[in-house]
């Protein structure tokens, strides 16, 4: 008997594929055009050449916040005191702004007609030991002195272009970040005006406010959920990941861009940010 060769099997599969009963192809053009129609003013127009950091290769593994919700009483007690402290402190404020072009090194914030409904939680990357996160030279992660040690840490990419996130789990009764059991996540990126690694897209119902974080410029984004894109690539393909996220403070400190997503409110979040040491 003559064995089946690969070409024959391939042909059988291709023939099967050619008359397979796939679901009808939806007409996506109109819907995509409706989504991007008002956004090109601030996005690909005026594009610069892709500036993909070598070595920042994303392969998503970590699934923060998808496991069973842990016993959080301990974390709650640990967070309670600093939050009370934070509640009495305040914040610099620089007025509500609108329009395009909110920027920080490594970050572009832009207004879009609308953001999609909340879906998948933000994939913060591969879980790593907290010691490893804190030992990184770039980005060098500072921790809020008003908070206890983080509960978890994650990394996207490797080397100097990596993005490191540390996070705190919510205590009993505390609000959590969308799709997770966390109350606070602090993402650190080695920011530079020349390299866009994060992009936030905010809808019309999202408020953005210029703030000062310990003397440095920052943006407080709240209201309707907004979307964040994280860019990275290996030079040939630029994977990106996104999620619809909640209230967020973005600011820079010591050449590092920080993104602090928080369920704790603006005042507490700003105080936490100001306490980075």
């Amino acid at each position, binding site marked *: 008997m003559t064995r089946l060769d690969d070409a024959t099997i391939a042909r059988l599969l291709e023939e099967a594929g050619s008359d397979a009963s*796939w679901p009808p192809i939806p007409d996506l*053009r109109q819907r*995509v055009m409706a989504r991007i129609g008002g956004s090109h003013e601030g996005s*690909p*127009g005026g594009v610069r050449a892709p500036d993909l950091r070598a070595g920042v290769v994303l392969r998503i593994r970590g699934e923060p916040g998808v*496991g*069973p919700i842990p016993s959080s009483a301990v974390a709650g007690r640990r967070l309670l005191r600093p939050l009370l402290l934070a509640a009495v402190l305040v914040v610099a404020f620089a007025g509500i702004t609108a329009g395009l072009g909110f920027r920080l090194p490594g970050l572009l914030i832009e207004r879009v007609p609308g953001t*999609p409904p909340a879906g998948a*939680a933000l994939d913060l990357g591969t879980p790593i030991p907290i010691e490893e996160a804190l030992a990184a030279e770039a980005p060098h992660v500072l921790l809020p002195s008003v908070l206890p040690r983080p509960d978890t840490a994650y990394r996207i990419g490797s080397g100097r272009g990596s993005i490191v996130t540390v996070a705190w789990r919510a205590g009993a009764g505390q609000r959590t970040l969308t799709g997770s059991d966390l109350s606070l996540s602090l993402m650190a990126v080695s920011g530079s005006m020349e390299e866009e690694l994060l992009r936030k897209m905010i809808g019309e119902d999202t408020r953005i406010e210029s703030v000062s974080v310990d003397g440095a410029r920052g943006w407080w984004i709240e209201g309707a959920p907004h979307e964040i894109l994280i860019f990275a690539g290996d030079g040939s393909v*630029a994977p990106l990941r996104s999620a619809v996220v909640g209230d967020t403070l973005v600011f820079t400190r010591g050449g590092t861009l920080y993104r602090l997503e928080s369920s704790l409110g603006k005042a507490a979040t700003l105080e936490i940010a100001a306490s980075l040491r």
Partner: protein
Amino acid sequence: MTQPEGRRDDSPDAAEAALVERARQGDAEAFGDLVTMHQAAAFRVAYVLTGAPADAEDAAQEAFVKAYLALDRFRPGSPFRPWLLAIVGNQARNRARARGRRESMAERAIAAVRGGSPRSTADAGPRIPASVPSPEVEAVSGETRAEVRAALATLREDERRVVTCRYLLGLTESETAAALGIPAGTAKSRLHRGLARMRDVLEAAGATTEAAR
């Protein structure tokens, strides 16, 4: 191996490259043309990965929007479709995981009320009961395809996805790897294993190269 009818290679098509460049300059209509050009592949890849037409539609739509917003990260002169399908695959896997989480939460809630243990949450893929054929197997219908369908159903999920993308959807090897988010070498080895397994099943069913011609 044979090439499927109408199959394209990875070399960038001049017309497509022109559309990409116009889109990069902010021409939304040009991007609309790219959507029309690639929506079938995007939707079917998303369908294979999510197992649900509605999820696939949402994932594909979302991927196109994200691709548009990320066009300034696209390397001019490189093929557009693998880049796009990488984003589609990412969106589809996210959506499948989200659905898995929702179902897992629902199962935990039901288990809490009724007692008993929810099933393991270790598998983050789409929740398709074992008794229900995978979407790609289900798509292969017709009496003459029965043996192919049966052989496809015996593959491991990771092998079946590679075989499906490569031959049923007609993607190139690099597009297949990009869509599935795996290295090209991994795609190649899974393809090799998948074909070998199918050969065993088909031959056991009596198929030979001569008979198949």
